[in-house]
C-alpha cells in the first residue's frame, strides 16, 4: 500500500501526491427540499475534513432534475455562503459522483485548489414523484431514433439484459440474487431507504416493468444528498485517491458498439493502472447498480468475475459484508437509495466509511483497497476510482 496517494496525469510522466478527505455520511431524507440536504451534508463534510468553510477554494456540484438550473454550482455556493476560487457543475449521469472526485483530485494535484468540495443532491421522490422521475429520465433517449418507439430507461437496460443473458447463460434468478444481496446489505445501514428483507421469489414475482426486468430489478427513486472534500491537507484516518480513469463508448443504446462489452472495462483498467494494482488486489467494491443487470455486467466486465460467473457467486452470498467479494455494503442504488447524482456519491462515501473503519455492523475486515465505479446513460459513460487507506 502506498503511504501517499498518487494521481498520474494523462501522459503518466508527472506524478502528484495528494490526500482525499472524507467527509460525512450522506443520509437519505424524505422531508427536506431544495438545497437543505446538500447544505447539511456539505458542512458535515467540511467539519469532517477539519476545515473551516472559508478554506474551501473549489466547489464541484452535480446536476439536479428537481432543481434544474444553468448555474447550479453558483446557486449552491450562494445558498451555502461559499466563495470559492473555482466553481462549476458536472453532468455525467450516473458517472457524475466518481467523475467529480476525479476532477477534484486533478484540481488539487495541479495546485489549482487546496480543498475542493464535491456535492450532490436531488429530492427526486418528493420533488418529482415516481411517474415524474420516470418520464424525466426517459428524455435521455434519442429524440429521433429511440423515443418514438416508447423506449424507457428500464427497456434500454432490458435490451442489454436479454442479450447478455443469452450470451453468458445468466438467468432471471441470477439477476434477482443481485437485488436480494443489495437488500440484505441495506439492512445493515441505518440510513437505507429500503431495508425489509426480500427473497428471489419476491423479485421474480414483482410486477414486470420491461422484460426481463421487474420492479425489484430497478433502483429506487429517493431523496437525499451527500458531500465530500478532496484536500491537499492532512488529517488522521484520511482516505487516499490512488487512481482514477474513465471510458466512453456511446450515449444512446441504439449506438452502442456492443450490448455485452462496455467501456467500464477501459475505465477500470485505466484506474487500476494509475494505482498500480489489479482487480485481484481489491478488497471491497462500490459499483453503480441502477438495475440488477448493471451491477452484474460491470462485475464481470471489470474482471471481478468471469463472464457468467457472477450470478451463481452472488446466490452464494459473495457480495455481502462477510462474502468473498463485499460489494455495495450500504445496499446500493437498489436498496440504500437513488437520489440521482447523489446516489453515485453514496458509493464513494461508503467506500470511504469502510476504509476508515467507520462502517459499524457492516464493516468489512481488512478493507484496505476499495474500487468505486459510476456509469451514466445506458452503460455509456464510465468513471472508476481506486481508493486506499491513508
Amino acid at each position: 500500500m502506498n503511504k501517499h496517494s498518487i494521481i498520474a496525469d494523462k501522459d503518466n510522466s508527472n506524478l502528484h501526491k495528494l490526500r482525499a478527505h472524507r467527509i460525512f455520511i450522506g443520509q437519505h431524507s424524505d422531508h427536506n427540499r431544495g438545497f437543505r440536504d446538500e447544505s447539511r451534508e456539505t458542512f458535515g463534510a467540511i467539519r469532517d475534513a477539519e476545515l473551516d468553510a472559508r478554506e474551501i477554494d473549489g466547489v464541484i456540484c452535480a446536476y439536479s432534475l428537481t432543481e434544474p438550473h444553468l448555474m447550479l454550482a453558483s446557486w449552491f455556493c450562494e445558498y451555502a455562503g461559499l466563495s470559492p476560487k473555482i466553481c462549476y457543475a458536472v453532468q455525467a449521469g450516473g458517472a457524475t459522483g466518481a467523475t467529480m472526485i476525479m476532477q477534484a483530485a486533478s484540481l488539487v494535484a495541479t495546485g489549482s485548489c487546496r480543498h475542493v468540495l464535491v456535492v450532490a443532491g436531488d429530492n427526486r421522490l418528493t420533488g418529482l414523484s415516481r411517474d415524474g422521475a420516470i418520464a424525466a429520465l426517459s428524455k435521455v433517449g434519442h429524440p429521433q431514433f429511440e423515443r418514438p418507439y416508447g423506449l424507457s430507461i428500464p427497456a434500454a437496460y432490458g435490451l442489454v439484459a436479454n442479450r447478455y443473458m443469452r450470451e453468458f447463460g445468466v438467468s432471471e434468478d441470477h439477476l434477482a440474487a443481485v437485488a436480494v444481496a443489495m437488500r440484505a446489505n441495506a439492512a445493515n445501514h441505518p440510513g437505507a431507504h429500503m431495508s425489509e428483507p426480500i427473497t428471489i421469489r419476491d423479485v421474480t414475482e414483482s410486477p414486470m416493468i420491461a422484460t426481463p426486468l421487474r420492479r425489484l430489478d430497478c433502483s429506487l427513486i429517493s431523496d437525499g444528498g451527500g458531500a465530500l472534500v478532496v484536500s491537499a491537507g492532512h488529517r488522521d484516518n484520511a482516505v487516499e485517491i490512488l487512481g482514477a480513469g474513465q471510458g466512453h463508448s456511446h450515449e444512446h443504446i441504439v449506438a452502442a458498439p456492443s450490448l455485452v462489452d462496455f467501456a467500464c472495462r477501459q475505465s477500470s483498467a485505466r484506474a487500476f493502472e494509475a494505482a498500480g494494482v489489479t482487480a485481484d488486489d481489491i478488497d471491497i467494491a462500490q459499483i453503480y447498480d441502477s438495475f440488477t443487470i448493471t451491477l452484474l455486467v460491470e462485475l464481470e466486465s471489470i474482471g471481478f468475475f468471469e463472464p457468467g460467473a457472477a450470478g451463481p457467486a452472488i446466490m452464494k452470498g459473495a457480495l455481502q459484508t462477510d462474502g468473498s467479494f463485499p460489494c455495495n455494503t450500504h445496499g446500493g442504488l437498489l436498496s440504500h437509495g437513488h437520489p440521482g447524482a447523489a446516489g453515485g456519491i453514496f458509493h464513494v462515501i461508503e467506500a470511504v466509511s469502510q476504509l476508515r473503519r467507520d462502517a459499524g455492523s457492516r464493516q468489512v475486515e481488512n478493507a484496505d483497497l476499495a474500487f468505486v465505479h459510476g456509469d451514466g446513460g445506458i452503460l455509456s459513460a464510465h468513471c472508476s476510482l481506486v481508493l486506499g487507506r491513508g
Partner: protein
Amino acid sequence: MRGTVHSFSLVHRAPTKAFVADVPYYVGLIDMDEGFRIMTNVQPINERKFEIGAPVQIFFEKRDNATVLPQARIVTKTEN
C-alpha cells in the same frame, strides 16, 4: 428491407402518458442486412417465433400526418 433481432424488451410500464395505451409493446434492436442497427417496435406481440436472431421485415406505419415510423414484423426465412 430485412434484418435480424439483436435484442428486445417487452415494455409493460410506459415511460410517458403517450405510450400508456400501447402497453405491452416490443422495443427491439434490429441488425439490418445492409449492416447498420436500428431501434423499432416489433409486431405483433403474440408472435411465437420472436427471439434473438429471428428474421424480420421492415414496414412503415403512419402515426400522424407528420410521422411515419419503421416497424418490424417477424418473418420465416423462406417468406418473401
